[in-house]
């Protein structure tokens, strides 16, 4: 039976005959002869196909391409372009009218459009148990071509020219391997397929064997012909039963069809294949160990040389290639080395299959041209990180490779670029890690794998990896010591240099590369006993508490709410955070992002529970409870700035018995809480109640006093202040730096909000307002402008919605209230009529390469500008400290405008002067400011001779107090006031939880802080 790779159907119905199909058919036959395709392409006359008005009609199978109104002169193109080169002649295609196009074809979704599938060309398309379907897709045509038209040397040359390199990971040029084996002395020779896929997270070999086994069989036969071997083995692990089964069936079918066995295609060439099932030892993926295993020996590596090309199976020359390498071979033979070499990069040709695993939306297998940027694989094809989490790093090469952190997302993925970053291509496992992955724990995991899989033959691997694992284990348990990291680096290098085989030589790689890029996490584990990803369970009680910058004991207060012990709950919060009422409203709640409950359904509503308990206490007691101030030390401390950082420090210092005076330049206390956050998010009376509870500790707040101007540092010293805490926040505008910025109607976001909060009318009623920026200040300004009666509010942001730094709920509420958003637009200039603003001119932005933060950098779209009509432009693009008075007083500032203070001690260069909060970090969250104030209080207490223990003592018993609800249960959502009331008033938008809702919500906590439950 003759096999044609393609059939061309020529409609010879009466309609087409009359429109000239016979001339088309003879032109086709001539064309095929001219290109020597008559043995590959069969022309078939059919009866009427139906659409006679489109005749003459040609249909090309197996693709099923439908050409209509073909003239004899078109045939040349069809033969040359389509039948010879596989390019469809689009101008002759039939285009479907309308409707069906609405249903996306699977090939059209983003996941596939950026892929180029060579090794995976058939998986998911053909029936792996049907050899006919493989043949229908050019299967065994390459073998036929090789046997009938090529000499063995030509085959090797073709593979060499294609630039194909070993896809198992090491990347050795395949053609050279074949050549060495072909030229080596010794007979018989062998062909072996390495299907001992063992990397955690890699599964492309399994997928190819399961989905397209014939492609491997065909390729191995081609290699057998090229090197002069007649026997091949596929070494596949027993854990892949389906692959073993389908491969076995495929071999049988191939034998039956005469595609394996004696005298294939009637030529003298004979080739047979056998499956060897491995027991699944990782080391058997190493070539010498694999070959030993095939021979029935213990799966252990031996030193090389001699390489298998000289001395492989039973001491005979042997080619050993990986499944994916094999799967590429038939296509290279059919489409040519030049075509293959046209894909990829200079030194890495073709495509590579990656198994996407870990924290990625589209877990699966993808095949992309070599050199595709890592970021494209992860975001465009992989769909990015689920649940809006932040990308941290990607591990390539599994336990033998290394990690690539976010700043290298633009790296073109090929053998050499990855090697430069200290990792390897490996077999193509791509494990994506997000912010919830601990880099110490991850390194430990990979090393543990190697410890388990070490065959034990050589000491560096057997003992060395074990020692490394012990050190890592200690670090994750909080028992790390100074010098551990250096020891790991030293040991790792020794093992790399001295281990016998690839397993040992690469085993330290994950540890070395994770230390290289994430050294700070290792140091944090060792010095601070902190695991920021909340993974190393010995280092914290609960992920929420571990994540809270202020370290609030969340599960304990949530449990008190569940038991209706509201006073206890409130004081539990207050111990670590003097602002429960404020944070219950405006905190960005990083704790909820790490809540384990999210693995069941949704995180516990930690923030709204905090608000509930604070509201309850205020409502039922008339004032907020607090702790008793400590016995007086007789020492005086001054705090400059009454924002969350300053007042938090004042609170804790008062508890320690210091006499604290807070100096505030503005007429009101509270800093950004008072003049930055609008009334509808944080009512003034609530803030006042909370500040009042700090005043009751004896803290004096002097408003309207600007230090450096109204009082000098010397005067303060003379007045007996022994220490000074600078917490002036970041209240100064930042210029946009564009033309027209000085026109009347351009105002900064902070000034707009400050004026509003201090009772002035910013005058936007009936006007069109454009807001520049994507942070919380921009959202607050936009929503406030709507409430002030602006006719239209438009936010212009240069990145995408998902890149906005504002709290998600603020963005959602702004959209809900009617704020318009224009994303990917940057301000160019403000234009005006006379002195007054009339529009904001913007530049359209496109997404460019990935920046250091792992987000795509917006780049101007050439020539695309537009104007947003506006009477008022609010620029909310960032703030800096108003530092002039203090700078003049001798407090050191950094170039960026922030105060220079020691990260550990919070001390500035001036003795006795500490600093913290936004004025040190730049604009940040409330809870981070509170954490900074607390830290400063500790340091100031130590400086003044105290023990630094500023948090009130409490006895905490971690025990289960009721039923733990593990079934799904919806999260309690606080309601909000309706839209109409929102737009005509500054009434608080969010409503609190009712008592019953709060108690029920508290019951959703899984109490992961209780260890022995």
């Amino acid at each position: 039976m003759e096999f044609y790779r393609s059939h061309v159907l020529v409609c010879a119905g009466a309609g087409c005959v009359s429109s000239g199909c016979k001339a088309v058919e003879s032109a086709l036959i001539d064309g095929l002869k001219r290109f020597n395709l008559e043995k590959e392409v069969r022309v078939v006359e059919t009866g009427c196909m139906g659409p006679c008005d489109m005749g003459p009609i040609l249909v090309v199978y197996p693709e099923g391409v439908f050409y209509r109104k073909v003239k004899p002169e078109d045939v040349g193109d069809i033969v040359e372009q389509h039948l010879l080169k596989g390019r469809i002649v689009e101008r002759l295609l039939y285009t479907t009218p309308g409707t069906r196009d609405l249903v996306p074809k699977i090939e059209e979704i983003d996941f596939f459009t950026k892929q180029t599938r060579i090794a995976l060309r058939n998986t998911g398309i053909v029936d792996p148990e049907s050899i006919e379907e493989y043949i229908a897709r050019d299967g065994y045509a390459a073998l036929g071509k090789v046997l009938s038209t090529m000499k063995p040397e030509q085959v090797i040359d073709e593979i060499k020219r294609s630039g194909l390199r070993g896809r198992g990971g090491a990347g050795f040029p395949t053609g050279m391997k074949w050549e060495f084996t072909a030229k080596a002395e010794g007979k018989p020779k062998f062909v072996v397929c390495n299907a001992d896929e063992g990397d955690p997270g890699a599964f492309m070999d399994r997928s190819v064997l399961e989905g397209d086994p014939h492609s491997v069989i065909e390729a191995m036969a081609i290699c057998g012909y090229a090197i002069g071997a007649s026997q091949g083995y596929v070494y596949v692990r027993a854990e892949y039963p389906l692959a073993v089964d389908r491969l076995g069936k495929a071999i049988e079918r191939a034998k039956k069809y005469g595609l394996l066995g004696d005298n294939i295609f009637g030529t003298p060439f004979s080739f047979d294949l056998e499956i060897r099932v491995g027991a699944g030892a990782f080391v058997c993926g190493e070539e010498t160990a694999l070959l030993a295993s095939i021979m029935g020996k213990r799966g252990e590596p031996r030193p090389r040389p001699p390489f298998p090309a000289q001395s492989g199976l039973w001491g005979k020359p042997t080619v050993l290639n990986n499944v994916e390498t094999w799967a590429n071979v038939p296509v290279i033979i059919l489409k040519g080395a030049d075509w293959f070499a046209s894909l990829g990069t200079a030194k890495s040709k073709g495509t590579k299959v990656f198994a996407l695993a870990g924290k990625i939306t589209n877990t699966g297998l993808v095949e992309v041209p070599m050199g595709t940027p890592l970021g494209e694989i992860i975001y465009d094809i992989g769909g990015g990180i689920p649940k809006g989490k932040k990308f941290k790093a990607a591990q390539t090469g599994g336990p033998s490779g290394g990690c690539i952190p976010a700043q290298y997302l633009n790296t073109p993925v090929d053998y050499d670029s990855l090697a430069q970053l200290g990792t390897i291509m490996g077999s193509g496992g791509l494990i994506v890690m997000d912010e919830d992955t601990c880099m110490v724990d991850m390194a430990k995991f990979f090393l543990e794998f190697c410890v388990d899989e070490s065959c034990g033959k050589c000491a560096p691997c057997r003992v060395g990896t074990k020692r490394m694992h012990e050190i890592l284990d200690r670090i994750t348990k909080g028992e790390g010591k100074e010098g551990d990291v250096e020891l790991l680096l030293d040991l790792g290098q020794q093992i790399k240099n001295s281990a016998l085989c690839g397993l040992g030589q690469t085993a330290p790689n994950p540890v070395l590369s994770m230390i290289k890029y994430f050294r700070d996490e290792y140091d944090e584990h060792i010095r601070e006993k902190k695991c920021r990803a909340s993974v190393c369970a010995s280092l914290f009680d609960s992920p929420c508490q571990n994540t809270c910058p202020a370290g609030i004991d969340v599960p304990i207060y949530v449990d008190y709410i569940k038991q209706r012990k509201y006073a206890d709950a409130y004081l539990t919060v207050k111990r670590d955070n003097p602002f429960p009422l404020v944070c219950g409203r405006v905190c960005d709640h990083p704790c909820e992002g790490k809540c384990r409950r999210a693995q069941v359904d949704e995180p516990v509503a930690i923030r709204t529970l905090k608000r509930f308990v604070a509201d309850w206490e205020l409502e039922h007691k008339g004032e907020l409870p607090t702790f008793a101030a400590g016995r007086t030390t007789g020492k005086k401390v001054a705090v400059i700035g009454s924002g969350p950082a300053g007042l938090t420090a004042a609170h804790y210092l008062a508890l320690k018995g210091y006499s604290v005076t807070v100096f505030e330049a503005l007429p009101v206390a509270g800093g950004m809480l008072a003049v930055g956050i609008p009334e509808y998010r944080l009512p003034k009376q609530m803030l006042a109640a909370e500040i009042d509870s700090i005043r009751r500790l004896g803290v004096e707040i002097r408003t309207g006093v600007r230090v450096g101007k109204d009082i000098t540092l010397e005067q303060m010293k003379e007045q007996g202040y022994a220490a000074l805490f600078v917490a002036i926040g970041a209240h100064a505008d930042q210029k946009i730096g564009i033309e027209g910025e000085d026109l009347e109607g351009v105002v900064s976001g902070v000034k707009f909000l400050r004026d509003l909060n201090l009772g002035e009318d910013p005058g936007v009623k009936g006007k069109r307002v454009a807001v520049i920026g994507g942070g919380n200040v921009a959202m607050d300004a936009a929503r406030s402008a709507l409430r002030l009666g602006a006719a239209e509010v438009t936010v212009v942001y240069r990145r995408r919605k998902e890149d906005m730094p504002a709290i998600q709920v603020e963005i959602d509420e702004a959209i809900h209230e009617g704020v318009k958003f224009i994303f990917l637009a940057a301000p160019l200039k403000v234009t005006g009529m006379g002195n007054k603003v009339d529009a904001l001119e913007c530049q359209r932005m496109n997404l460019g390469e990935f920046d250091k933060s792992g987000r795509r950098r917006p780049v101007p779209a050439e020539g695309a500008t537009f104007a947003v009509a506006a009477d008022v432009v609010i620029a909310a693009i960032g703030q800096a400290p108003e530092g002039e008075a203090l700078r003049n007083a001798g407090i050191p500032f950094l170039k960026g405008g922030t105060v220079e203070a020691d990260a550990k001690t919070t001390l500035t260069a001036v003795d006795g002067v500490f600093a913290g909060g936004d004025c040190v970090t730049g604009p940040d969250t409330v809870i981070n400011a509170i954490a900074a104030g607390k830290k400063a209080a500790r340091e100031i207490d130590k400086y003044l001779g105290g023990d630094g223990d500023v948090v009130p003592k409490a006895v905490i018993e971690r025990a289960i107090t009721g039923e733990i609800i593990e079934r799904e249960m919806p999260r309690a959502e606080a309601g909000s006031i309706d839209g109409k009331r929102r737009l005509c008033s500054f009434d608080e938008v969010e409503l609190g939880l009712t008592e019953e809702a709060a108690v029920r919500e508290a019951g959703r906590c899984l109490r992961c802080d209780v260890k022995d439950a």
Partner: protein
Amino acid sequence: MRVREGEKETRIVVGMGTCGIAAGARDVMSAILAELAARNITDVTVSQTGCVGLCEYEPLVDVIRPGEEKVTYSYVNADKARQIVNRHVVNGQIIGEWVIARKQ
């Protein structure tokens, strides 16, 4: 001739790689076969295929009606599979909400 076969009748292809099977493709396959048998439908080819790469969305089922584009359904279970046979294979109505989504 095999090259052209299958084009005259509707084909249903179930993703039966390890990923598909782990996600329940066997139940889907048997539900499809049972439904076709119950409705006495014989002009439909049901076949299996390997992993197409979208493991996250398995079980995947392709329906190819003659002369129409392939439609791919994701997250199919036995119940959805029966409905796909009834609504799409028999009545030609594509069930849009289950079709694998194109990213906006």
